[in-house]
């Protein structure tokens, strides 16, 4: 009798989760499983082809390029964003004018991608305003060579532009997160340490850094989320076939989608999800070990 009652009680509680979970099943999990199935089939006659689709992905030159670029972009972009925003948060946290600065830095979040792209094109065109400024500077110093103008989007600079726009858009977001983590640290410990003569470096290394480990994990995760989202701007400013340094996995997926190459796309979808899953699990495990 008691068991039955508890069972019904549990059920009522799970009713909260059910509508959302049903939707997640229908729009995310089940179609994903279908894609896993299709990644082993040929789309025309639905014949089983084993790992053929995966092999086709691995031997695709564009895939190799996109993996390399995406890895470089993420390996540089995520740590850079986290470090810059942490430094700013450390500077900001004792200022009384903190809020005003934070508001100003958050502003790019509200700016539609298309607006940003318009501004970007005026600034970084080969004959754009940034080159104009650089040319102006070189003219002032006669010893410098004549400035030719850099075609940012069609040269190795493209990745730098992409990184800058990613940092521009997300620094404020991450600064807030760091400030939150910092404000959660007990102030008394730091004050006590300062009275005992701890210098800034010791304060950072022994008190602040260990206290931020949980925050670091969350911010890292959200940085990854934001770096994936930055594809939108990249695509809008440089199109489906950009300079080869900024050809990312998302370009590849989108282009295969437009060309209806669903076989390879299914395999790539599965591969990428697996990579993300493994990364998530590893990070979580490490976090648990650190006791964060």
């Amino acid at each position, binding site marked *: 009798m008691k068991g039955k009652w508890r069972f019904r009680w549990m059920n009522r509680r799970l009713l909260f989760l059910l509508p*959302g979970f049903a939707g997640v099943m229908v729009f995310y999990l089940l179609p994903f499983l279908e*894609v896993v199935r299709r990644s082993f089939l040929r789309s025309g006659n639905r014949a089983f082809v084993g790992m053929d689709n995966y092999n086709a992905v691995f031997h695709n030159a564009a895939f190799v390029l996109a993996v390399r670029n995406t890895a470089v972009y993420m390996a540089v972009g995520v740590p850079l964003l986290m470090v810059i925003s942490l430094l700013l948060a450390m500077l900001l946290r004792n200022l009384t004018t903190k809020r005003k600065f934070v508001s100003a830095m958050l502003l790019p979040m509200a700016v539609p991608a298309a607006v940003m792209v318009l501004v970007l*094109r*005026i600034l970084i065109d080969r004959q754009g305003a940034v080159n104009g400024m650089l040319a102006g500077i070189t003219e002032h110093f006669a010893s410098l060579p004549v400035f030719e103008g850099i075609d940012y989007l069609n040269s190795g600079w493209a990745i730098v532009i992409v990184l800058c726009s990613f940092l521009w858009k997300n620094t404020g977001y991450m600064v*807030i997160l760091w400030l939150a983590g910092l404000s959660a640290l007990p102030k008394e410990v730091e004050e006590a340490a300062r009275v005992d003569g701890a210098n800034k470096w010791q304060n950072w290394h022994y008190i602040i850094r260990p206290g931020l480990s949980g925050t670091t994990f969350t911010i890292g995760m959200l940085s990854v989320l934001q770096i994936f989202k930055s594809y939108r701007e990249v695509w809008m400013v440089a199109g489906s076939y950009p300079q080869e340094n900024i050809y990312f996995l998302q370009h590849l997926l989108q282009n295969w989608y437009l060309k209806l190459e669903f076989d390879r796309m299914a395999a790539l979808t599965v591969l990428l999800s697996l990579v993300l899953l493994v990364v998530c699990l590893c990070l979580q495990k490490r976090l648990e070990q650190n006791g964060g």
Partner: protein
Amino acid sequence: MDVAQIISVKIKKKKKKNSWLATGICFLMAFIICLPLLMIPGGAFMDPAEIRQMLSPVLGAGNGYAIWHFIPIYPTIEHFYRLLIGSPAFYKLFWNTVGMTGAILAGQLIVGLPSAWAFAAFKFRGRDFLFGLYVVLMLLPFQVMLLPQYIVLQKLDLYSNPAAVILPAVFSTFPVFIMYRGFTQIDLEVLEAARLDGAGELQIFLYVGLPLGQMGTRAAMVLSFLEYWNLVEQPMAFLEEQKDWPLSLYLPQLDISQAGFAFAVSVVVLIPALFVFALGQDALEEGITYIGTKK
């Protein structure tokens, strides 16, 4: 003077000494971040001839480099006139965006809030696994979900229907994550007390959970608004007919030769976003705080 006072005086002195350099650096960063945005209002009120003259190098019609006047020399409201009076299509797209964003936010509230509450308030078997799954789903970029969603939308016969953009967004797991973090700020003891007093689970959710966790909810809504107000990839992939498109797909079609007009559209797109941003900034900052701090 007791010890505490001495310490606090010491600390205050230290703060004052540091703040000039820190303020300077922060001001510089904030200024650099805001500078490109200052180009927008100027451009929206600028005479087309002035824009053409400034941007002619970028337009491929001249040597030298583009320049930009932050304050127009020949201000005009021509672009707004053309946009608000002369282009009926604009209104269609504008209301498409409003409808889409509104439907998505409403759906996320209805579906996401109870889900987040279930994760925050109840312990059930498989909870951690399921929540981990939600987090992974939240991190998947749209392009990875492109094929799965295309398949399901085809099956449900929703392709090229506005619901093709709305429904997957409604069940997005990101707002659930943020709302969850807001709810975890509530002491579980409060819930226990309410249960002991005989409140039903629904009552606890409505009268205890929602008010106490509202900052997380509001933060989720602001983030969602900013995200879906500027939706690009989803409508591009799933909406074939231009009449269903949101405003965010109209803007990229404008060539740089129409920069003034594009800036005017930008201002109109930007105003609701800034409005929501200003209204929800407290919630956003506090809500993001919950994400950042683990409890």
